[in-house]
C-alpha cells in the first residue's frame, strides 16, 4: 500500500460502505413489503467501488450512473431523506418523484440524475468533462457503467471522443460478472475489459473492486491524471452482485460455488476484518457504527413513509424550462 491513510479516513470508508449496505438491506425489505413502487437494482456487494471512487473526487467533480445508482448517489452525497423520498416517488425526493430508483441524482452535489439506458451516461459524462475543459475548470467527470455497458455503441463513442479530445474523464467499469443474467464472457472476447483502453490509446487498469483501498488509490491516480490534463482512463473494478439483477431475480444462472466465493469476498466484511485485525476498531465499535447507521436509515424511511403522496396533476410540471 503506497498510500498512507489516517484512521479517520479508514473509518470514513468503512462507514460509507456500511451506510450503503444498511440502506440497501432496508430498501430491499420495503420493496418486498410493497411499500416502494416500481423496481429496484441494488448495489449490495459493490459498495467499495462507489465509496472508493467518490472519496477520490472533489465536491464539484461530477458523476453519472446507470440503472443501478444507489451506491453512487449515497457516496457522492445525495441527501439521504431526499434519496428515500425519491424511491417512494414523493415530493421532496431528489428528483421530485419524477425519477425513482433508476434516476436518482442531484446536480447540486455533482451527480447528474442517473441515466438508465445502458452506457448512455458515458458520453453525457464526457460532455460534462468537455465543459470543464472548455471553461478551463479544474474539474473531473466520472461515468460508472457495468460489464454489460461495454458492448454498447455509446461506450465506444463516448470513450473515443473523450480520448481524442483528452478530456478530464474517468470511466469506471464495475464488472459484477453479469449483464442482467448474461455472463460477461458471452459479451466480449476480452479477458480484461480494461484492455478496451488500448482501442482508445488511453490507460486501462483492472483492479480488485472489492478492496476499497485499492479502488481509492487507483481512482485517485486516474482522477488526478485527468485533472492535470493527462486525459481519460478506464478502470475495470472486479466485483460481484450479491443480489439479483433486480429485486425479483432468484439468480438461478449464478453457479453456487461462485456465489459462495462472492459472499466470502464481500467487500464490507473484508474491510471490517482488516480494520479489526489492524486494531482500528473493535467488535463493539463495529456494532455501534451499524446501529447508528441503521438508525439514520430508519429516520429517512420514517420521513418518507409519512410524507404525502405526489399530487397527480403535478405530473404536468417540469417538462419545459
Amino acid at each position, binding site marked *: 500500500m503506497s498510500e498512507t491513510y489516517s484512521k479517520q479516513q479508514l473509518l470514513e470508508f468503512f462507514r460509507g460502505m456500511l451506510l450503503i449496505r444498511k440502506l440497501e438491506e432496508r430498501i430491499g425489505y420495503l420493496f418486498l413489503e410493497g411499500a416502494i413502487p416500481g423496481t429496484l437494482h441494488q448495489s449490495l456487494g459493490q459498495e467499495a467501488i462507489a465509496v472508493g471512487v467518490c472519496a477520490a473526487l472533489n465536491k464539484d467533480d461530477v458523476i453519472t450512473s446507470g440503472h443501478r445508482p444507489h451506491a453512487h448517489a449515497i457516496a457522492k452525497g445525495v441527501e439521504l431523506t431526499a434519496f428515500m423520498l425519491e424511491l417512494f416517488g414523493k415530493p421532496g425526493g431528489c428528483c421530485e418523484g419524477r425519477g425513482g430508483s433508476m*434516476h436518482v441524482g442531484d446536480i*447540486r452535489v455533482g451527480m447528474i440524475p442517473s441515466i438508465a439506458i445502458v452506457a448512455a451516461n458515458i*458520453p453525457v459524462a464526457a460532455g460534462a468533462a468537455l465543459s470543464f475543459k472548455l471553461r478551463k475548470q479544474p474539474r473531473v467527470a466520472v461515468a460508472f457503467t457495468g460489464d454489460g455497458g461495454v458492448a454498447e455503441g455509446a461506450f465506444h*463513442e*463516448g470513450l473515443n471522443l473523450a480520448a481524442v479530445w483528452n478530456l478530464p474523464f474517468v470511466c469506471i467499469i464495475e464488472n459484477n460478472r453479469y449483464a442482467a443474467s448474461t455472463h460477461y464472457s458471452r459479451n466480449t472476447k476480452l479477458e480484461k475489459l480494461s484492455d478496451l483502453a488500448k482501442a482508445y490509446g488511453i490507460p486501462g487498469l483492472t483492479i480488485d473492486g472489492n478492496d476499497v483501498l485499492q479502488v481509492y488509490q487507483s481512482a485517485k491516480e486516474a482522477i488526478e491524471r485527468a485533472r492535470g490534463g493527462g486525459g481519460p482512463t478506464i478502470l475495470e473494478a472486479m466485483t460481484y452482485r450479491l443480489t439479483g439483477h433486480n429485486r425479483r431475480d432468484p439468480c438461478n444462472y449464478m453457479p453456487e460455488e461462485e456465489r459462495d466465493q462472492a459472499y466470502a469476498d464481500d467487500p464490507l466484511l473484508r474491510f471490517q476484518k482488516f480494520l479489526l485485525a489492524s486494531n482500528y476498531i473493535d467488535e463493539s465499535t463495529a456494532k455501534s457504527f451499524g446501529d447508528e447507521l441503521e438508525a439514520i436509515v430508519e429516520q429517512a424511511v420514517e420521513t418518507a413513509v409519512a410524507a404525502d403522496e405526489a399530487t397527480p396533476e403535478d405530473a404536468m410540471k417540469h*417538462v*419545459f*424550462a
Partner: protein
Amino acid sequence: MTQRRTILQALRDGLAEEMARDPDVFCMGEDISIAGGWGGVFTVTLGLEERFRGQLLDTPISELGYFGLAVGAAIMGMRPIVDVQYGDFLFLAMDQVVNQAAKMRYMSGGKVNVPMVIRAPIGATGRGAQHAQSLERFFFGVPGLKVVCPSTAYDAKGLLKSAIRDNNPVIMFEHKLLYGSKGLGQATGAVDASDDIPDEDYTVPIGKGVIRREGTDVTIIATLLMMHVAMNAAEELEAAGVSVEVIDPRSLNPFDWALVEESVKKTTRAMVLEEGPKFGGWSGEIAATLAEKMAEYLTAPVQRVASPDIPVPFSPTMEQYYRPGRQDVTQAVMSLLQYA
C-alpha cells in the same frame, strides 16, 4: 439597415453573433471547421474557422457520441449547437435526443436544464433514401423537445437565436433546397428563401406562427419547402378566383394553435401540406386536432397533402412524384371547395 441574406448566410451570421455574445455557445459537428474544408456539408460555418477556433469543434463521425457530449455540456450550463450532415443521421443519436436531452429536466424534477440546439438538414434532394427524409414526424411529439422549421432567411436567423437562448433542447430542421448554398452544397431545384435581414439583433419567438398570405376560402398550413409550394399554389388559385390563406407555423412544438384556429374560423376549410409519408406524419396530428376542436366551424373535412408511404426514391422523376407539388395542392384545394 438591412442586408440580403440566404438561409445559409443568415444561419452563419446568427451562429457568429451568438458565439461572440456568449462564450458558452459552441458548435460541434462533422467537418464544420477543418482548415481547407467546407464549413460543414452545406457550408454554414465556412469562414468562421479562424475567428471562433475554440468554439467550433470538429468531431469524428460519431453522432451518438457528440450528441451525448452536448447533453452533458448543456447540463453543466453551456449552450452547445450540434448538427448532423443530413437529418437522416439523427437516428444514430436518437437515444441522446429523446431519452436524455428531452427527458433530463423532467426526470430531475426541474433541477437540470439541457439548453442545446440540434440542426438537421432535411428534404428529398437527389441523394436517394438515406440523405433525404423529412424527420419532423419522428421528433415533433416528444415531450420536452421543441421543434422549429424555418422557411425563410429572416426566420432561420431569428429562430436560431431563440433556440440558442432557450433553456430547453430545440431541434431545427433546415430544408436543403432552401439554403441558397452555392458550390458544394448547391442542390437542383433550389428555391430562393432569402430575405432583407436587419443589421441589429432580433429573435423570432418559438411557438409563434405567421400568416404568409391572407385569404378567405381555404387555410393551408405548411412549413419549410412546402410553405413555398403553398404560396405558388395560392397564386395560381387566386387567378382561378380562389382565395387561399397560407399559415407558416414555423414551430411544430409548441404549435401556434391560436393562429390556425383563428384562420380556420374565417375560412372554414383547412389543408395541411407536408413533405414526407402521409401515414404517421405531423400533418395527421394537426388535422385530427382541428377536426376535434373546430368541428362547428369546418364546412369540409380537413385535407392532408403529403408524400406517398414509400422511402424517398433516387430517380429524379420518381423523386418529383414523391415530393408534393403545386398541382397536388391546387387539386386538394379544389376538392375542398366541392363541399360548399
